[in-house]
């Protein structure tokens, strides 16, 4: 569903079609990443075309948002007078881009700035980048109409998001027009929230040898996370509270406020690229860190490049006697269906207590009735201290879990339910296990209510005996603990 053509100086055309990869890493598959703009796929297709056809002088790349194959592209190519050009539908939705090879060689990362939804903006940008006229050819017989919010190829592009892409292209145009030295300006990622996403971005940036980006826009309220685990990209602090999860502020509105708050000086001296979700991230089997690695510029064409294909970055152990077994729980995620059921939590905790475990829980004073300690963890320092006082951390799919495992390397058990472990767990090891059921409704995308059964708990969590067994198995293996 991704396509391109190469044209040599002698006029020879070669056709290439690709699909979004699902984990087999076949030659015609391109890594499936949700955390990048559609234009990242223009870059990747261009890379593949150049690799397959090194003598190409012109690259023709289908709009990644559309389900196109190479044959379809050739039917629209006849009307193109010269390169560079953009072929659009009857209105201004880009169907394909005809780019001189030199543009890719010289300005690869600038292709990220193309909106892929507004040919007028893209034409202007390409004209500025190439310093030449860019023709726009209209196919009157093709009307894409309103590009939908989600597509069978797993794009997730509401109208607001399309406007965000156009706004950032317009910002790039303004930057080029106002700054004579624009070619040397740094690129910055726009992914200012949320905590887990920021952590994954920083993890990813340390694993990408050659990134498109030098900077990242981050909410000031996440300063402690950045400081605890900085990526390779320098921060551009955004002094706005992070986007609330209750949809009271839309992403588009938040972007507008962000640009306003960042100010002209930042905009004129950076190219900003949208890095929140453009696709359905859970449709991909790949870890979000890997999806971000692709977004940052790694082609991710081998399994060995993935989080699951490599050894853990860090592995650490507490300096504690094996008894009593000290356990730290984090049972509440960012939304209701991520929370481990109260009655199951109580049963597991009571069982562990009766077997000689000393239990602490993060931010659940209501569970103190079970004779355990509830602590607060408002920042990474508090979380680090709490984790290091315990043998094993047990957490739902949320920031503390990811931080404790990926940054501290602490023995961890992950509790997943309505999200897929493969998108945010860690490499399975003697000191890491992801626990989840096998219901085919996972991931459901629900937040506060199960879409199938209408209840506020997810049935896909493991039950208390499975959880307790996993904890004690790990404790026995790592510390020789026997109940």
């Amino acid at each position, binding site marked *: 569903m991704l396509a391109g053509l190469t044209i040599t100086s002698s006029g020879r055309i070669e056709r290439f079609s690709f699909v979004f990869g699902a984990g087999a890493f076949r030659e015609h598959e391109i890594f499936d990443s949700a955390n990048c703009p559609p234009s990242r796929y223009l870059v990747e297709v261009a890379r593949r075309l150049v690799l397959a056809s090194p003598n190409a002088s012109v690259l023709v790349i289908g709009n990644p948002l559309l389900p196109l194959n190479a044959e379809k592209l050739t039917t629209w190519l006849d009307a193109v007078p010269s390169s560079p050009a953009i072929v659009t539908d009857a209105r201004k939705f880009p169907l394909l881009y005809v780019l001189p090879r030199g543009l890719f060689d010289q300005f690869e990362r600038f292709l990220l700035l193309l909106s892929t939804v507004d040919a007028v903006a893209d034409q202007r940008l390409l004209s500025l980048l190439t310093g030449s006229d860019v023709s726009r050819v209209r196919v009157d017989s093709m009307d894409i109409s309103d590009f939908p919010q989600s597509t069978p190829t797993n794009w997730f592009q509401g109208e607001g998001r399309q406007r965000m892409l156009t706004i950032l292209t317009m910002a790039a145009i303004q930057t080029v027009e106002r700054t004579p030295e624009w070619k040397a300006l740094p690129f910055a990622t726009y992914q200012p929230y949320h905590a887990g996403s920021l952590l994954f971005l920083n993890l990813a940036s340390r694993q990408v040898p050659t990134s498109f980006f030098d900077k990242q826009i981050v909410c000031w309220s996440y300063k402690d996370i950045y400081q605890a685990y900085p990526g390779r990209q320098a921060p551009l602090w955004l002094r706005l509270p992070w986007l609330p999860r209750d949809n009271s502020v839309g992403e588009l509105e938040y972007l507008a406020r962000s640009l306003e708050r960042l100010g002209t000086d930042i905009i004129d001296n950076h190219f900003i690229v949208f890095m929140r979700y453009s696709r359905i991230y859970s449709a991909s089997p790949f870890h979000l860190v890997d999806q971000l690695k692709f977004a940052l510029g790694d082609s991710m064409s081998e399994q060995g490049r993935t989080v699951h294909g490599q050894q853990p970055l860090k592995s650490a152990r507490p300096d504690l006697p094996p008894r009593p077994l000290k356990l730290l729980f984090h049972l509440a995620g960012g939304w209701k269906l991520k929370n481990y059921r109260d009655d199951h939590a109580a049963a597991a905790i009571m069982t562990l207590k009766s077997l000689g475990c000393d239990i602490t829980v993060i931010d659940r004073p209501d569970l103190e009735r079970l004779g355990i300690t509830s602590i607060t963890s408002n920042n990474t320092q508090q979380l680090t201290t709490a984790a290091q006082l315990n043998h094993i951390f047990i957490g739902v799919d949320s920031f503390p879990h990811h931080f404790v495992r990926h940054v501290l390397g602490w023995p961890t058990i992950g509790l997943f339910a309505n999200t897929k472990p493969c998108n945010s767990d860690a490499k399975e090891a003697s000191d890491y296990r992801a626990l989840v059921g096998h219901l085919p409704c*996972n991931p459901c995308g629900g937040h506060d209510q199960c879409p199938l059964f209408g209840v506020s708990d997810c049935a896909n969590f493991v039950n208390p005996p499975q959880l307790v067994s996993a904890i004690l198995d790990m404790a026995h293996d790592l510390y020789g603990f*026997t109940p």
Partner: protein
Amino acid sequence: MSVRVLAFFDTRYQTSPELIRYFGSPDPWAGLRTVRPVSRQHAHLNWPSSLGAYDLADPTQAANVVGMAVKAGLDGFVIDLHPDGDHYLTGAEPLAAWCKPDVFGLAFRLQAGRDTFWTAPASKELQQHRAARLVKALAIATPITAGGSPVLIVDQPDKLADPAQFLAILRDEARNAGLPGLYMIANRAVAAEFGRYGFDAAIDPGPDEWASCKPQNKPSGLNILEIEAGLRDSVEMTDKFFSYSLFAVSRMINREARGKVFPRVFPAYQNWPSHTTGGATVLMDRDGPGSVDRYIYGLFVENAITFAHENFAPDERFVFLESWNHWLDGSQIEPSVLDGDLIYNATRNAIDKGRYMTRTRGERPARQLPSSVHDMISQICDAAAAAGGSGR
């Protein structure tokens, strides 16, 4: 070893004289061509597209079928053993020619309820003779094996006159034929039900045999009167309609507790053609009967693969797909006129994803604590749950 995905396969679609005689029509596709729904709530059956109305007797067409199955990530087909006099017909020969060790193989299924020989008492001599014929039918192709032994599924094991003797005689005859044995799988939702007879494992029964959730239709008294008065479609009383998502989800809930039962996954199911007077099972997604919820189906396949990986020994990790070409119950994944290659591609993607997850996850470490400790944990958890988490 990676989880092996095997698809049920109907070999009737060929012009071999034996199969034509057995099924009673010179046109193998006649059944699918002529069958018509008699209710608006029964969807029309689909029709093959890119593979066409193939004839497996033609080697090229058989090769296309196997090639496409391999491309989808399948490891083999499960072929029915049709009792025919005192021997068994499979129609597997054209496919066997294209099988390759470690790439693609065949397993077999005996539908015990349709084999009157095994449902009635018989002398040991006759049983040995019959078992030898059965084993001979298995020996035609690159077999799918577990523990080195060819895999044989037994449907309706409760119909067997003497399940334990059936297994013992069949295994003896397999050894007499030079095989290391047989890996026997009972068609049962709970492994323990027939495990005591010596079955090696079980497989989820098909949608028509095991309704894993309650049907959606439950006609009221008024509905029944309306049906009797000809004011309402009678299938609401005679057939069972299920939500596909609920049906699939309920099969995977707490399935570890059912023992070594291999998952059976399916994209759709409606068997009205074989229940013309009522009693059909019809799965529906949001768009009604016959349509496919590719999202849930893909996750059904993916989760079945991860489940098999986590719960079974490396050589016994199977997921069974219903089906490659059971066109007559609408469960086929072959490309079709109505669905194009959407279901085929959804299958391939789901297998790719499942295999990526299991391949990169590696082997889960063996349990560290003795099973007595795990039993104790279960008991304490139960007691704690009964105490209601009050801290008492």
